[in-house]
């Protein structure tokens, strides 16, 4: 082949450097660059990105300086201290514990669980959907029956039961328990797209080029459904913050001595707190709203940059 090509093509090894430089100049920008220019073109999304990244970094670092057991000690003297008094920036709750500090540690716990849950459940769901959709036939049949069985289980009930059975649980075990139940939606979504994607000619071309199934799934098909994966992951991240807070609100999430956004919002269960001591629950509620909104803004931008026809960025 080599002699053959050299005979019929004017290009030889001497031209390699010059030509690859030429090609380099004409290259289409990489996807990271496209995403960045898309963020620059969309100001609200840029603000959202700064808020989310800034806030996550802030709570991760700030919580290192907070002594949680000491913070959670009851201090009767500061019973429902209002914001600004006795050095409590956001006031104190019925136990006299600082709401501001609880918010920082609680947000770290809740976001940590949400990130862990999203990473585990999305990775598993995406792999499950891709493999099921690509191989089709008996493999698909078997995998979808497992899916059906998991869907049949009452999710919230099961989680509550598991949390009650397991004596000593913390943020990590709670994340794993959630992960058992939260991969299904993703997997069905990914499977349906994979089914149509694996019928396309580029997959057949990859097969005739001798590419292995594993590589076709993860290097050919997965990049082509990346916009779907990104949207689904960002949305499920926003949703997963709600999963933990929801259960903690009901009292089945993190143990009572571990603060989370859910336990803070649970303060609103008390009518006194709702009417008079708003500072015990309002900051946490606002925080969740702002975070979820920001995340969905970011998701939209990333989705747009994956689809050339929807881009706002000029130089993309």
């Amino acid at each position: 082949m080599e002699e053959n090509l050299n005979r019929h093509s004017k290009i030889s090894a001497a031209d390699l450097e010059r030509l690859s430089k030429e090609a380099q100049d004409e290259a289409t920008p990489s996807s990271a660059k496209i995403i960045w220019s898309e963020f620059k073109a969309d100001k609200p999304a840029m603000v959202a990105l700064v808020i989310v990244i800034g806030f996550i970094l802030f709570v991760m670092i700030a919580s290192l300086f907070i002594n949680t057991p000491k913070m959670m000690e009851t201090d009767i003297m500061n019973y429902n201290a209002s914001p600004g008094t006795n050095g409590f920036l956001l006031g104190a709750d019925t136990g006299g514990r600082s709401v501001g500090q609880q918010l920082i540690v609680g947000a770290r716990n809740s976001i940590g669980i949400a990130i862990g849950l999203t990473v585990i459940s999305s990775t598993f769901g995406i792999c499950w959907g891709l493999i099921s959709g690509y191989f089709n036939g008996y493999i698909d049949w078997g995998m979808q029956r497992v899916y059906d069985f998991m869907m049949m289980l009452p999710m919230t009930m099961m989680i509550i039961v598991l949390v009650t059975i397991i004596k000593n649980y913390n943020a990590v075990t709670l994340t794993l328990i959630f992960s058992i139940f939260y991969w299904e939606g993703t997997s069905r979504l990914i499977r349906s797209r994979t089914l149509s994607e694996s019928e396309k000619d580029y997959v057949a071309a990859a097969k005739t080029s001798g590419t292995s199934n594993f590589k076709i799934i993860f290097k050919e098909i997965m990049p082509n459904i990346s916009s779907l994966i990104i949207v689904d992951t960002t949305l499920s991240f926003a949703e997963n913050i709600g999963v933990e807070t929801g259960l903690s609100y009901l009292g089945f999430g993190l143990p009572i001595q571990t603060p989370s956004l859910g336990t803070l919002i649970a303060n609103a269960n008390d009518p006194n707190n709702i009417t008079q001591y708003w500072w015990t629950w309002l900051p946490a509620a606002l925080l969740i709203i702002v975070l979820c909104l920001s995340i969905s803004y970011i998701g939209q931008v990333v989705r747009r940059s994956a689809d050339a026809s929807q881009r706002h960025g000029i130089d993309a």
Partner: protein
Amino acid sequence: MSLVEIKDLTVHYPIRSGFWNRITDSVKAVDGISFNIEAGETYGLVGESGSGKSTTGKSVVGLEKVTSGSIMYKGKDITKKANRKSLDYNHDVQMIFQDSLSSLNPRKRIEDIIAEPLRNFEHLDKNEEKLRVLQLLDIVGLDADALYKYPHQFSGGQRQRIGVARAVATNPKLIIADEPVSALDLSVQAQVLNFMKKIQREFGISYLFISHDLGVVRHMCNNIAIMNNGRLVEIGTKDDIYNHPMHIYTKRLLAAIPETNVNNRAEHRAKRLKVEEIYREQKDKYYDKDGLAYPLVQITPTHSVALPEDLVDQLKHEGEVQA
């Protein structure tokens, strides 16, 4: 010995129905066809849509699961996956697809697309590989600045040439060209076809050229097989098929080629109508009672047609009278 020998190839798709979802019937996409592809030649496979020609092509390249029959290459039956693997079959047999856009991964750069078979079959170092890709691009008439672009940035003709470059990257012995130009406009068709011919001359590649366009097939192929409803109705050389067609289906296909000479419009029309009339009147004679083609009967060493013996004799006689 021929390069590839296809013998009694059948591809049936099961139809499932009923409460238990059992196989109740099957679609006979390819129903027992045999032909040989010689080294260095272009073999044309012609037929209407749904006649099974693409399925045949996909079976030969190893993309379709074959129900029965054999495809022999280097003395091994490549319908079995293990044989394909041990021969590195796809190193020698590649495919050009009809839809140039969907056959190129939209998320990959041209360099990665063309280098894909090279990476799998010939493990070159980075610079060698890049040089090879640049040379391939040069051969199909594209500039080096295509290297880091994405498929959607090219026109249809350019994309199809990228597809050709990928197919010839490993210097295969046979390329299955599944309607490679039917999605392109006429001027670009000629361009791509001439590239394919040039590459064939330079690299000594055989083509299995699948098409429904008899004009294109005449330009490209030496030997032609006509397919109808999963069976072969006529095989022969270019001369046999275009100048001495025997089967009514072949005659109808030939009558469908548009004529550009406007002066003889009425004459062409009359000829076409006559073929159609013969088809309507004598349909039962040309097909068996299920509406399928008969087994092939050899007329001359190169020419075979799917007709009962007596009809062949009758048609031969008529031909002599006319001559």
